[in-house]
């Protein structure tokens, strides 16, 4: 593996939600294994479900019993402690190092099984399997696909480290962080390829911003834009064939598309104002971007075939850094008002703007692939932290760490089923 495993981020829930559905996740039975598992599967699942804001997992110390199979469950006891759902499970060892994880999701009120699965696992993918279990449970209960078993990318800056800037990928709970690129010079603007196998990013390693594409598994990379002036804000098209990017080689920063196979470059905007932060609509036909052509930065959209950009946002004097929800109905963005920069959600159909966060230096919003959470960076004191907020703004959690100033998170795509 070319990626190195680094210390994990830790999770801190900063806002709870009234009306979240109560669920108890009982520790899985591991008593028949030849050696102890390196991770606590039930703990990972309980923590995942908690972060969603939709479910609220019962504290382990309060569990009234410790069943591992549905036929060991006395439903009355769980009803009495107010639980709607119950998860039980066990881990079996097929051969040394090869496990089978079995779990059941039970409806406490109806006293029946809603879901039961068994899945093979090895030591190295136990965490991923636990997130998969969270995805199954979340989808069964809410009807929405879970996004726990996906990855996030972000940039970490560390003042006194050997390499000051590190581009990392991690699980959505912040664990399992791996280095993608280390550099003495700034790294910016990571963007996931739609297949989740590569990242595009901006690196200053040659003392100027240049855009690279890097395949994560092999660490093979190529420079795709190193023009005079600005090379910034890469964004992968939904079909993976193009990058939208920002170049200033022809004067002011403008939006271009680059065919990554033919290397053909196409200029989409020509205004002498700043045009930047392109993101693609999921149909690949339009691009939303930031422009200060009307005096203050606002969001615009332009057809990828060209044409005149149309203004999207009108409320407030500062709306930038769009991230589109997967269904295209919402835009998460940085919304500046009276010198404070918060994450807001703009509903395209109605024009409603909802401010989701309550800090003053928030940036880089990124939708989860199921559209239910927005990941973002927030500066507190002299450090940047990662947060995720539910799209109704009610549940928020922080992914924190001992080291470094963390910024520019981007939520990766679903793994193909």
């Amino acid at each position, binding site marked *: 593996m*070319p*990626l*190195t495993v680094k210390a994990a981020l830790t999770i801190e829930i900063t806002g709870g939600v009234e009306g979240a559905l109560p669920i108890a996740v009982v520790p899985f039975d591991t008593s028949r294994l030849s050696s102890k598992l390196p991770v606590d599967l039930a703990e990972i699942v309980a923590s995942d479900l908690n972060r969603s804001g939709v479910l609220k997992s019962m504290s382990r110390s309060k569990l009234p019993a410790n069943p591992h199979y549905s036929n060991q469950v006395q439903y009355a006891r769980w009803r009495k402690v107010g639980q709607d759902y119950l998860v039980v499970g066990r881990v079996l060892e097929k051969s040394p190092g090869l496990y089978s994880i079995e779990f059941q999701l039970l409806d406490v009120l109806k006293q029946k099984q809603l879901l039961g699965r068994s899945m093979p696992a090895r030591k190295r993918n136990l965490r991923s399997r636990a997130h998969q279990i969270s995805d199954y449970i979340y989808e069964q209960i809410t009807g929405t696909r879970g996004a726990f078993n996906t990855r996030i990318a972000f940039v970490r800056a560390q003042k006194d480290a050997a*390499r000051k800037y590190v581009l990392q990928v991690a699980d959505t709970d912040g664990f399992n962080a*791996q280095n*993608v*690129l*280390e*550099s003495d*010079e*700034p790294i*910016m*603007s990571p963007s996931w390829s739609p297949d989740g196998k590569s990242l595009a990013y901006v690196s*200053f*390693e*040659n*003392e100027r*911003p240049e855009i690279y594409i890097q395949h994560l598994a092999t*660490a*093979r*990379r*190529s*420079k*795709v*834009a*190193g*023009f*005079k*002036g*600005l090379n*910034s*804000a890469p964004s992968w098209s939904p079909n993976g064939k193009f990058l939208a990017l*920002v170049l*200033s*080689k*022809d*004067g*002011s*920063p403008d939006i271009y598309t680059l065919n990554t196979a033919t*290397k053909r*470059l196409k200029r989409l905007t020509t205004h002498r104002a*700043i045009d*930047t*932060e392109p993101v693609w609509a999921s149909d690949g036909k339009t691009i939303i971007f*930031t422009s200060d052509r009307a005096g*203050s*930065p606002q969001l615009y959209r332009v057809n990828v075939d060209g044409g005149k950009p149309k203004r999207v946002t009108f409320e407030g004097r*500062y709306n*930038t*850094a769009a991230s589109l929800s997967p269904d295209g109905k919402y835009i998460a963005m*940085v919304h*500046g008002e009276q*010198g404070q*920069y918060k994450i807001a959600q703009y509903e395209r159909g109605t024009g409603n703007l909802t401010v989701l966060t309550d800090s*003053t*230096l928030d*940036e880089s919003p990124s939708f989860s692939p199921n559209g239910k959470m927005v990941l973002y960076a927030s*500066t507190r004191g*002299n450090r940047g932290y990662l947060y995720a907020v539910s799209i109704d703004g009610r549940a928020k959690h922080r992914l924190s760490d001992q080291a470094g100033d963390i910024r*520019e998170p981007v939520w990766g795509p679903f793994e193909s089923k």
Partner: protein
Amino acid sequence: MKLRNRMKPWMIAGLVAIFVSACATTQEEMIDGAPIDDQTGMADDGSISGGADATGISDDMAGDGTSIADGAPIDAIAMLEQTEGALASRTIYFEFDSAKLSSESIQILETHGSFIAGNGVVTVRLEGHADERGSREYNIALGDRRAQSVRRVLLFQGASTDQLDTVSYGEEQPAMSGHTEEAWSKNRRVELIYTVN
């Protein structure tokens, strides 16, 4: 504005020529599609065995540094080593979300521009920066525009495009840390970094 008053028709013609040649260079670069450079620059430990290893201008040199090669002409060096006067001012500051130069800044830059024009041995790297507020990508674009604003004045004064290089760091390299207006005003800047060749 002073700049306008000093413009003469022949100067405009000259400028057009400069811009046309600048554009021509850019076009060639684009057609060549130069920037494709496939490399496997990563070792197993995740470190880079390529450009990121190269020693660059370190943070403390990013200020008003002047790097001087051996045997460089004495006059230019002596002028750059003066601690007073417009040439010693090598940081230009900006208002929030603006790339507009104040008239004071323009005066300072006119002195730099004439000096650069008269000293073919100097090259200048114009590093644009922004304060931390708002989005990073917007801020790197803002830094780029600030550097371009400075570049335009230097070109007006006769500096050649070959002598000027612009780069934007956006909000990535603040001159002063902190979340106060004082820090922000110090961070919205363009630094002129001279090299005497």
